[in-house]
């Protein structure tokens, strides 16, 4: 009869793996990177023509060094910014002060009254980053809400759950029309 090999003592294996576990807990961080994705515009060419946009099609948001808002020439509030921006784009009453709409045929959606509006955002060098992110967030929220509403209405799903073709169609109907104005002192240095 062959002799049995002696069994390995595995009692300390747990201790060793606990050590490894603790090591990984210490050196790693859990934070998933979240954030607001944006695309910067290319640098303007030297004598580029300024595209003509009608005054009523521009939703002007100014933030000053004291983190105060000026929305369309009136002192604004961060809590109502989202509603104001939505109202500007959708223009339910066809007011002559809010953005123009153009009937456009969009695949999968059909004729849709696409807004010609653009949000123009300008901030001071003294604006705090927190306020800037807040404003960006509220404007993005306005656009996301409009997209969700259109998706619900046409496809019965939220924008995030749409397939690629549909979401492209919705994105075409409601583009992210946020333009950041050139910071003022950049032009002065040349």
């Amino acid at each position: 009869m062959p002799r049995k090999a002696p069994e390995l003592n595995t009692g300390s294996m747990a201790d060793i793996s606990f050590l490894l576990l603790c090591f990984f807990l210490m050196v790693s961080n859990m934070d998933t990177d979240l954030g607001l994705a944006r695309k910067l515009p290319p640098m303007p060419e030297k004598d580029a023509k300024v595209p003509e946009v009608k005054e009523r099609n521009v939703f002007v948001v100014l933030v000053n060094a004291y983190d105060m808002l000026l929305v369309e020439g009136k002192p604004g509030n961060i809590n109502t910014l989202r509603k104001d921006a939505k109202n500007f784009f959708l223009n339910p009453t066809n007011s002559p002060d809010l953005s123009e709409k153009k009937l456009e045929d969009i695949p999968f959606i059909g004729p849709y009254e696409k807004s010609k509006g653009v949000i123009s955002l300008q901030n001071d060098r003294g604006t705090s980053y927190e306020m800037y992110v807040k404003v960006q967030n509220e404007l993005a929220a306005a656009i996301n809400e409009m997209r969700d509403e259109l998706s619900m209405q046409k496809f019965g799903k939220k924008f995030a759950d749409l397939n690629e073709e549909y979401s492209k169609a919705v994105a075409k109907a409601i583009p992210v029309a946020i333009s950041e104005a050139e910071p003022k002192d950049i032009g002065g240095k040349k």
Partner: protein
Amino acid sequence: MGRFKKSGGKETPGINTGSMSDIVFMFLFFFMVITKIRQGELFVRISAPAATEVQKLERKNLVSYIYIGVPIKSKLYGTEPRIQLNDQFATSENIAEFIANERAVRNEADRQFLTTSMKVDKKVKMGIVTDVKQELRKVGAYKINYSTKRGKVTD
């Protein structure tokens, strides 16, 4: 009637700890998968602002990070917000070089997907952020991501 009497003393049987290591290993692998190893040391204090419309940053190997905030060792480096690139303080003039380096280490097909993640403290003024953004525009790094936490914005 000693028939049912057990021989020997009453010892409780020892708990079998053989599978404990398996369980701990499972934990270990779980943590190894969901975390990433901390890269470099932060010299600036960053408390990210909150936002609700956040997106997850995809393809982490194609992300370069720019940190802006007040130095942690403020006695040594002052209390003015500074830019940190890789493992050192920098100024906005270094951004172009930094982006060029980041591009050089990626392969050519991936370069267009390179994203710059701006990790900025919420107290920092926009002036320094604007300078960085202008530099990024000059070198054509248009895709950026303002790093935020998930949270309520308005009250």
